[in-house]
């Protein structure tokens, strides 16, 4: 069992609180991504799990066992650094052997396991090279292989793919998934790339300013963001967030967008849950791909807007709409037929709306 529990985990560097009262349970054999912008505390969290940093408060349990007194070299975690930290004075083989040697593994066993790992990582013909001659992609493979070869139950990866070229990054993603399958480790993966996180992880923990924002499956995090930060951070282009006022115009729910007009809301279910917040300032959120563009005068909820900019980005077209002081992005199929300056109506389909409290940014009406 190698579940990881973080309990009230806090790390302070002087006045700066890098990680603030973090509680997280990472079940055994799961692949969890720590996601957030730089400086959000994700690497610090990772370092604390590994034992490179000691928490200021709180505790870390591996499989229920408190790790406080266990030094880093006894925690048996695999760790892949962002810059790989390859031992440049050694050959590839020596790098791969390192973890096994210091554990005192038998020579023949070392040879076998290194061979296996080299096969797996396709590093066979590089084994006796000096690492200074390797490409970045190969260094990455050595770094992962070097940690994996000791078969740790917990595997931590600190932005391992950020230095790679796009094609190899995609390849490595599948490789990593593969690897986790093979070795059945508990994997913690630090990234600031939400696509990477969503494609790889079983669960995503979104962090910001040292605080846990949301923890859940990629689906949950994407579709039910707990707050504007998560909503904004996940997805590309990110969710449209429009400050507005929730009114109770004539018994019906409506959103007052000020100079952009008012829109009724059809989503009765959501509104019911928003009852308490009537006549309050809120943030209305909707993912770009959820918004419909319709001719005006069609009587569905939405606001009249004008096409201000059309952005064809390969597989999709992003249409920028604006009205008054508001502007939104709408994602459509490629070659979506629309003209600049067209007067359209942005429609907000039922069941896709998100309402956040304007002040706290927390989602309103989530179950």
């Amino acid at each position, binding site marked *: 069992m190698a579940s990881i529990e973080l309990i009230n985990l806090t790390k302070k560097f002087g006045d700066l609180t890098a990680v603030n009262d973090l509680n997280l349970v990472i079940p055994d054999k799961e692949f969890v991504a720590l996601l957030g912008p730089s400086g959000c505390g994700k690497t610090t969290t990772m370092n604390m799990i590994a034992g490179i940093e000691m928490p200021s408060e709180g505790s870390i349990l591996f499989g229920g066992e408190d790790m406080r007194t266990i*030094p*880093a070299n006894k925690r048996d975690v695999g760790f892949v650094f962002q810059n790989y930290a390859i031992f440049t004075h050694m050959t590839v083989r020596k790098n791969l052997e390192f973890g096994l040697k210091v554990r005192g593994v038998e020579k023949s066993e070392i040879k076998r396991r290194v061979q296996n790992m080299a096969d797996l990582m396709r590093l066979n013909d590089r084994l006796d090279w000096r690492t200074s001659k390797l490409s970045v992609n190969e260094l990455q493979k050595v770094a992962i292989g070097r940690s994996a070869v000791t078969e740790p139950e917990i595997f931590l990866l600190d932005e391992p793919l950020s230095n790679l070229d796009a094609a190899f990054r995609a390849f490595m993603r599948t490789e990593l998934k593969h690897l986790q399958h093979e070795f059945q480790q508990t994997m913690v993966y630090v990234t600031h790339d939400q696509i990477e996180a969503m494609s790889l992880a079983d669960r995503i923990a979104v962090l910001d300013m040292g605080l846990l924002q949301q923890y859940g499956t990629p689906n949950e995090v994407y579709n039910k963001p707990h707050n504007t930060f998560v909503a904004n951070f996940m997805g590309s282009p990110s969710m449209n967030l429009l400050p507005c006022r929730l009114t109770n115009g004539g018994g019906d729910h409506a959103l007052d967008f000020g100079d952009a007009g008012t829109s009724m809301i059809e989503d009765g279910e959501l509104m019911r849950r928003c009852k308490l917040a009537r006549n309050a300032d809120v943030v209305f959120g909707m993912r770009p791909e959820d918004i419909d563009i319709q001719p005006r005068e069609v009587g569905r909820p939405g606001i009249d807007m004008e096409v201000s900019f059309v952005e064809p980005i390969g597989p999709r077209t992003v249409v920028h709409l604006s009205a008054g002081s508001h502007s939104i992005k709408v994602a459509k199929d490629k070659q979506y037929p629309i003209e600049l300056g067209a007067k359209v109506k942005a429609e907000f389909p039922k069941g896709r709306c998100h309402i956040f409290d304007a002040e706290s940014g927390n989602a309103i009406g989530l179950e």
Partner: protein
Amino acid sequence: MPKPLHSYIWRYALILIAVGLALLPVAWMATMAFKPHTEWVTSASDLHWWPHQETWGNFEYIFTGQTEAVTVSHERTAGKPILASLVTSLLGTLIAVVAGTLGAYAVSRFKVGGNLPLGVLQLRLFPPLAVMIPVMIMWAFLGAMDTWWGLSLIYGIVTLPFAFWLMKTFFDEVPREIEEAALVEGCSWFRVFWKVTLPMVKEALASTALFVFILNWSDYVIALLLTRKEWVTIPVYMNSLSSAMSGQMYGAKAALGLIAALPPVIFGIAIQKYLVRGLTFGALKQ
């Protein structure tokens, strides 16, 4: 890397011991400088740490040639030797560092200079006393005996190897790409050296200069043989601090030693932040 508390205790304990040992003779010197004559007679079986009667007499003696407790006044005072040491050590350092840096860059970059590297190495290899006879004769012939330039020149020469070899290892490590980029921009080689490469090794340059300065500053043998009166340096002058009355004047020597420690210490502290990085000898190719 987190460390358990007990490792800190161990570390501080060891560091305190090391610092204590390093300071022991320095502390002895510092207190000795304030001891009167009666408290430094080594055969009197009463050597103690703290002066029983603190006195500034030793400083007075080396700067004025006399002090109350010592009947015999001294012909020489420390003022001129301190000046002589400063002038010759600094000039010697300047000569060594300039010639060494230029030469090292040329050898490192352009592979010119032939046997220069080995030549300067040999210069440092063997005891200076073994070649001082011809040097003495040559200096006398040139009228360089007991002159500031004569002493500075020999200092520059004997410490040239250090400056050269240290700087060469640094230049070897400076990435060519940066220089090449500047060359492509149309800089001349010398401008590249002056404006691009030199600023990159300035930490190393500072450390090298300190090192060379300390070597020059500590010299005794060369100054002994190449000076007479006007440009006698501190270590040579120090040898004169003995009298028929009181034998070796340890107090005065300690007082002078204390003063003599100041320039290197000040220099060292001034470039302290460069010191560690500056002395890696470029050996840490990543």
